[in-house]
């Protein structure tokens, strides 16, 4: 067993933020209600008291401008960490993220770079309906010039931020809102982790379940259930959606010959579609069964619990899709 400190996903991110503020005077945190309120999800609680209002900055409800100001400050030598309350609100800042953060390095012939970190909550499951529940990380992963990471574990919640800050490019961190309360043990000396590889979270020989973010715990629960039924599922955590670690995914499927992709985004034009395409491109002849996908229903996330549950990938859906994949005879 890991010897470490009992902590939560939320506290892991907070300690990463605190460490960043302590280590680098260029780092500052900015966003809606990150200061006095302590953060919509209480991630930044206590940081204002510790670091003061210059470095923990409450902003007006002006997503486009505080994200754009983060870009400008990053280009001008600072290391801003911008928090967008939920990824739905990031749409108000899309101009700055797409047209500036993602383009400046290339469009300036490499003269300028944007070492900016943007954190945002993503995902559904709290009955907050269609304007607070979506998973848009797959959209952002479409855009060259951005890096998109989706920490699903305490270790990644703690370690991805520092690596993102050291990256000279804009890095978007998508934190699944249902993970904030997830608890576990984290080594006291937990440090930076890479942000460009996928990771096998559970070994298995029969089928690969490829997932990320808030769906990882569901995939692991499904794998546990499948194990009782004699199916050994391997679970691959993508961790980073751009750049996508094709090698790790292909290596897993080359071993198991079957793949189920679990993605809380909508199926059409999603990251699950991209992973499927990579498998087809790189290991088509290794596949013994069609690729299965478990995605959100193609509806704006509904409020009522039974409808919301039905709209999202659930453990039972993953189990069913995986059993379907392994029962297909090549």
């Amino acid at each position, binding site marked *: 067993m890991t010897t470490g400190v009992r902590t939560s996903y939320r506290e892991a991110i907070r300690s990463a933020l605190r460490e960043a503020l302590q280590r680098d005077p260029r780092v500052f945190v900015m966003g809606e209600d990150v200061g006095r309120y302590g953060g919509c999800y209480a991630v930044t609680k206590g940081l204002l008291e510790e670091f003061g209002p210059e470095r923990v900055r409450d902003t007006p409800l*002006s997503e486009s401008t505080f994200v*754009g100001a983060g870009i*400008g400050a990053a280009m001008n030598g600072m290391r801003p960490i911008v928090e967008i309350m939920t990824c739905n609100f990031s749409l108000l800042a899309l101009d700055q993220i797409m047209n500036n953060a993602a383009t400046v390095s290339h469009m300036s012939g*490499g003269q300028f770079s944007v070492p900016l970190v943007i954190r945002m909550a993503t995902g559904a499951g709290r009955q907050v309906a269609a304007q607070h529940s979506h998973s848009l990380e797959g959209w952002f992963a479409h855009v060259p010039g951005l890096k998109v990471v989706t920490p699903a574990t305490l270790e990644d919640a703690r370690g991805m931020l520092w690596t993102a800050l050291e990256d000279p490019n804009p890095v978007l961190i998508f934190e699944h809102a249902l993970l904030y309360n997830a608890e576990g043990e984290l080594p006291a000396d937990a440090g930076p982790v890479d942000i460009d590889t996928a990771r096998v979270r559970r070994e298995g020989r029969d089928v690969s379940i490829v997932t990320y973010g808030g769906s990882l715990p569901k995939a692991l629960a499904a794998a546990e259930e499948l194990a009782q039924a004699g199916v050994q599922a391997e679970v691959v955590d993508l961790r980073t959606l751009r750049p996508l670690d094709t090698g790790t995914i292909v290596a897993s499927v080359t071993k198991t010959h079957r793949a189920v992709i679990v993605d809380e985004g909508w199926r059409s034009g999603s990251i699950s579609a991209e992973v499927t395409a990579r498998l087809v491109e790189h290991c088509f002849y290794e596949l013994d069964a069609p690729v299965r996908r478990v995605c959100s229903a193609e509806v704006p996330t509904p409020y009522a619990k039974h409808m919301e549950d039905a709209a999202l990938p659930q453990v039972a859906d993953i189990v069913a899709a995986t059993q379907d994949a392994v029962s297909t005879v090549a």
Partner: protein
Amino acid sequence: MPRHTEDHRLHLLREMLRIRRFEEKSAELYSAGKIRGFLHLYIGEEAVAAGVMQSLAPDDTVVATYREHGHAIARGVGMGPLMAEMYGKAEGASRGRGGSMHIFDAATRFVGGNAIVGGGLPLAVGYALADRLRGDARVTCCFFGEGAVAEGEFHESMNLAALWGLPVLFCCENNLYAMGTALQRSESETDLALKASAYGMPAWHVDGMDVEAVEAAAQRAVTTVRGGPGPVFLEMRTYRFRPHSMYDPELYRPKEEVAAWKERDPISTVQATLREQGALDNVALEKLEDEVAREVEAAVAFAEAATLESLDDLARFVYAEGAAE
């Protein structure tokens, strides 16, 4: 205070001529197919860039628009790299990746070249925030057209810069038309300085066809911004003599209006002043024109001789090279 000596007036004339002749050549080269894409000419508005740049220090930052050749030239970006960029060459200011609308130059702290109307304002706020946090005494000068005033980013940026007391000089170039849409057809309140002052910052309008008036206003504004805290807004009332871009048939404004504004050509005006003072005669003007023409010709020669980026480098700079500093 502005240096309204004859020498300084001649300097202002030279700066405006450099912009005008460069752009006239650009239009010619566009017709010849050497330059493609969009080409937005600044002709008629030269007094704004030439006047404002006098007030900025080398360490200050400039954020400009897609109609930015004038800002780049007046800021000191070399005409050669500027022209080579429009030729799409590797020796261009942005290595051929930006074109006319996206001129960048780190050496002169020239941060684009922004072709999303209003999109440069949040960047300027961020530049100024970084300077403020570090205690640097820089000013960030942000140019934008009156069309940007209709964008949400304008209002967000004015508010944030004023709220946080940031050292931004907002230079609104009011040339009366957002592409083809006249100001009075898009704004319920057409007094732009009045709008800006609602955010609690000093704001006033300036005759943008008078280079000395522009310079005087910019000097005062920059002094105020540097003294801090907080931004200043200047509305430069100006006019573009040419169409919006090379594709524009100009159906939206009467020829008489264009002709009336051309009577107020900022270059003719300052020439007339200098002639009245006896500081400029035909010989001196010819010499000046000749020097400018040679600079433009050298830029064209530079662009012609420049090379095309290797396609092996197509994806270069999508991500920054090397680790962050």
